[in-house]
């Protein structure tokens, strides 16, 4: 086991770094997509609303793997050719963003009516009311489910290995193919994913939750 890590540790580390990069970029895509689609679903303009619904249902109704292959193999036929790295984090981000949109919508709707009415009474414009009153409170409500979603996102990034992005899972597969030491290769990958989820993402989200609650004076 020790000499396995000595030989393949650096390569696994490279893979883990690619996974981290994919995770961060996909998380950014997911945040933007979720906020846009979540707000879009509540819009009073029907084209915006239906566009958001189509996006959400399309990405929630099919598998991430199908979306990944479609974006990587089929989209070039429409003239949009994405390199594998970009295709990877875009698919994962858009997929998770569709789930996130429902969280955003639920959280915005869960902000008490009185807050909306108070904003109206102070004759704030709808945009200002959303930005200054509603969204900050909704953010506190949506953070706990977002924590779970970020774990799902991390797990989703493992699929980009299937379009040959050299992430952790890809490296593990390569080592397995070269050495047939499957237990060590995939076991090490599983362990790294677990550590990323347990030591980095979950505590970071908890910290964010606490910080947001404090800023709103609720902790």
């Amino acid at each position, binding site marked *: 086991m020790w000499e396995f890590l000595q030989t393949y540790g650096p390569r696994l580390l490279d893979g883990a770094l690619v996974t981290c990069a994919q995770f961060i970029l996909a998380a950014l895509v997911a945040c933007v997509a979720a906020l846009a689609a979540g707000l879009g679903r509540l819009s009073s303009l029907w084209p915006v609303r239906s566009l958001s619904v189509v996006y959400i*249902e399309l990405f929630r109704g099919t598998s991430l*793997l199908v979306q990944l*292959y479609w974006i990587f193999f*089929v989209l070039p036929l429409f003239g949009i050719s994405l390199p594998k790295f970009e295709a990877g984090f875009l698919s994962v981000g858009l997929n998770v963003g569709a789930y996130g949109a429902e969280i955003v919508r639920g959280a915005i709707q869960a902000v008490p009516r009185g807050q909306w009415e108070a904003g109206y009474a102070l004759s704030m414009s709808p945009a200002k009311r959303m930005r200054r009153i509603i969204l900050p409170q909704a953010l506190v409500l949506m953070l706990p489910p977002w924590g779970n979603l970020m774990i799902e996102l991390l*797990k989703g990034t493992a699929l980009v290995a299937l379009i040959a992005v050299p992430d952790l899972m890809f490296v593990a597969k390569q080592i397995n193919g070269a050495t047939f030491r499957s237990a060590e290769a995939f076991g090490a990958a*599983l362990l790294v994913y677990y550590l990323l989820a347990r030591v980095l993402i979950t505590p970071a989200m908890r910290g964010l939750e606490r910080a947001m609650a404090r800023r709103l004076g609720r902790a």
Partner: protein
Amino acid sequence: MTFDWNWEFAFEILPRLLRATINTLIAAGVGYGIAMILGLVFALALRSSGRLPRTLLREVLEFIRSTPLVVQIFFIFYVGPQVGITLSPWVAGMIAIGLHYSAYLAEVYRAGIEAVPRGQWESCRALNLTTRDSYVRIILPQALPHAVPGMGNYLVGIFKDTPMLSVIGVTELMQAANSIGSETYRFLEPYTLVGLIFLALSLPTAGLVRLGERRLRRKLGL
């Protein structure tokens, strides 16, 4: 290559894809069956045994939930032969997907069991029921309605995760599309059709789950 949707080709491959869809549904069904049973075992184990095994089991379930299913599928498929158990792709895939989702269902069951009022347990005690009888006849029947919405969501989830089985060569929908693609060098029709088949199956199912949830809530007076 340019965009040229070929209807003739699409209709030619549709029967093959639909046949593979049956395999996808079987995989989802069998995987879900395993997950339902294993999940219940885990949920009960989490409640009963001593402190140490309980913490250990909780950590193991957390591990299963927070690592990618694809890696788990590879792990089970390739590590089996290393220790002398050769698993077919189907068996390895079903174990992996069943185990993965059992970790989620254990949480759903646990929440359901905890939603049963304490008084019910006390009545069981008062009527001198054995632990087994209390669970089977009193607690679980009342816990189940609380668990149904979560269970429905994971049914849709397991269905959407079956394409991952294609990585070890289970002949389901995604695998069929992949082999059509590599035989004909046409990816537009197979992958688009796969997407449409998934939409056609998962949207109604998700709708039914939501409808059932609403009806159940009304029945329970929630």
